[in-house]
C-alpha cells in the first residue's frame, strides 16, 4: 500500500476509535440508571455523567484526527499528481 493508502487506513482506524468512544460514552451514561437513591447516588450519577461527557468530547477530537489524516492524504495525492 502506498503512503496515501496508509494514511487513509489510519484515518479509518481513527474513526473506528471515535465510534468506540461514543459507544463507551453511552455505556457509562447508562450506569446512571441505578435504583440507588441517596446523596451519594447523586454524586455517583454526576461523576458518571462527567465521564460520559468527557468520552463524547474525546470521540469528537479523535474524529478530528481522522479528518487531519485524510487531509494529509489529500496533500500527498496532490503532490504526486503535480509530479506527473
Amino acid at each position, binding site marked *: 500500500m502506498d503512503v496515501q493508502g*496508509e494514511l487513509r487506513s489510519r484515518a479509518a482506524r481513527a474513526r473506528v476509535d471515535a465510534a*468506540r468512544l461514543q459507544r463507551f460514552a453511552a455505556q457509562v451514561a447508562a450506569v446512571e440508571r441505578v435504583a440507588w437513591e441517596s446523596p451519594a447516588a447523586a454524586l455517583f450519577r454526576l461523576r458518571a455523567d462527567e465521564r460520559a461527557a468527557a*468520552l463524547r468530547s*474525546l470521540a469528537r477530537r479523535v474524529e478530528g*484526527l481522522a479528518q487531519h*489524516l485524510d487531509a*494529509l492524504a489529500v496533500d*500527498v495525492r*496532490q*503532490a504526486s499528481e503535480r509530479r506527473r
Partner: protein
Amino acid sequence: MSIDVSGGAGGIAASLTDLDLAVVVLRRTGCGVGEVSASILRVAVDPVLLGAGLVVAQHDPGRALEAGRRILELEAEALAVGGLRGVAGEAAALMALAEGVAGSVTAYRAGEAATAAALGRLQDVAMSAAAAALPVLLLAASVDVAVEGPDGALRRLDQLVFRHPWLVDTAAGGLDGLLGSLGPDGPGPAIVLGAAAALAGLTWPPRTEEEAVRILSGLASLGGGLDEDSAWAGVDVSPGVTPVGRAPTAPSGVAGLIEDAIDLGMGDPGRVRVVQVPQADGSSAWILQLPGTQVWEPRPGPDPFDLSTNLEAMTGEATLAAAGATVALDRAMAAAGRAGQDDPVMLTGHSQGGILAAALASSGRFRAGHHVTDVVTIGSPVGRFPIPADVTVLSLEHAQDPVPRLDGIPNPDRPTWTTVRRDLDDGGPAPDPDRARGSTAGGAQPADAGAPAASAPAAGALAAHGAGRYLVTAREVDAAVVAGTSRSLDAWARSAAIFVGHPSPAVVTDYHLVRSRTDPVVVRDR
C-alpha cells in the same frame, strides 16, 4: 399513615446489585478506553507520517513546509488526545470510579452484616437479662393481674406492644439468649429444657432462633400439646365447592386477595381457596389462598389451621394443613385439565396463611410439582423462610402488629422481595381494644371483615393484626401501583399481573380440610 415500601426492585439490595453491574461496566469500559488510547498514541509515532512529509517535499517542495506543519500538529494532537490528559486519563478515571463504587458497595455490605450481628447479640443480651429478672417479672405480672384482673392486664399488654412493638422483635430475636440463660448453668428449668432439646434432636444450649423455637415446640410436646403427629395421621380434603357470594373473577389487586382471606375466615373453618385465572394463551394462573389461625387450643383438633400448625410451620416441619392445601390445588388443576402443565402459582394468606404460603414456597418438594412464581403474605412472620430468589414476594406488615415480628428479623431486602409497612400509630392514645378491636391475633374473624374495623381508629396490637385493617393497607398498595409511585411495587405488579387485577372471569373453588386419624394418609415430607 402512608405506606413505607422497602426491598424489591427499588430496594437497597437491588441498588447494590445495580451498582455491582455498574462496576463491571465501568471496569470493562475503562479497559476498552485504554485500548483506544494505545491505538491513538500509535498515530503520534507512526512512520507513515514521516513518509508523507518526504513524499510532499520530494514532489512538491513548495508545499513541504505546510505539510510539515500539518504533520507536527497531527502528532501533537494525537499525543494530547491519546495521552494522560485525554483518552488514557479517561481510562484511569473510569477505573478509579469503578473501584470507588466497588469499595463502597463492599463496605456497605460489611456494615449491614456487622449491624445485623450486633443487633442479634443485643437481643440475646436483653433476653438473658430478662431471664435473670424472671422471678421479678413474674411477680410484677402477678400483681398486675391481681390489681387489674386478667382482662385488664391483657389490655395493658396489648397497648404496651402497640406503643413499643420493638419489644416483640427483642423477645423473638433473643429467644436463644433467653433459653441459654435458663440452661444448665441457670435456674430451675434446666432439666426440662434439656429434655425438650433432646426431644427436638438438638443439643443444649440453642445456637440459633430456629433451634430455640424447635426446643420450645419440643417443650410443648412434653406436655402433650402442639404436636399434630401425636394424634393425627392424615388429612381429608373434601370435593371442591363454589363459594356462595364470591364473584367468579380474579382478585382486583392486593385488596382482592385480602377480601378472599377475610371470606375464608368468616365461613366454615378449615377451608382453602383455589382461584384459576385463565390466560389469553390458553394456560391458567393459579392462586392458592390459605386461611389464618382458626383454633387456639394447644391440643391439635380436626381443624388443621391451629396453633400447632403455626409452630410446626415456623420450625420448618411439614404440616397437614400444607399437605391438604397441596392436594386441593392439585385437584383443582386436574379438574381443569391443567395437571402437570407448569402453570404459574401464587401462594397467599393472612397470618398463618402467609406462614404456610412461605413454607410451601420454601419446600423443594412442593416446588418440584408446582411452578411457584409469587407469594403474598399479610401480617405473617416469614423473614426466616428460605424462599428462592426467583419467587416474587410481597409482604404487608403493620408496624404495631406483633405477629410479623415473631421471627425476630426483618424480611430480606432483595430485588424480588418487597415489604410494605404501615404505621398505625397516629401518636394519640391507644383506644380501648375492647371497643375498637379489629380482630383476634388469629386469622380473619368476623370482626376483621367489615369496614367498621377497617376504618376504626388505631387500636391495640391485636387489632393491628386484623385482616380488616390490612384491607385498608392493601388499598393503599393498589393505589400506589396505579399511581406508579414505587419502583418496587411497580415491579411486583408486573410480576403479579397474570394473577390479580384482571376483570376477566375466574374459577373459584373452596376445599374443606379435616385432620384424620387414618386414611387417607398424606405423605408428610417437606
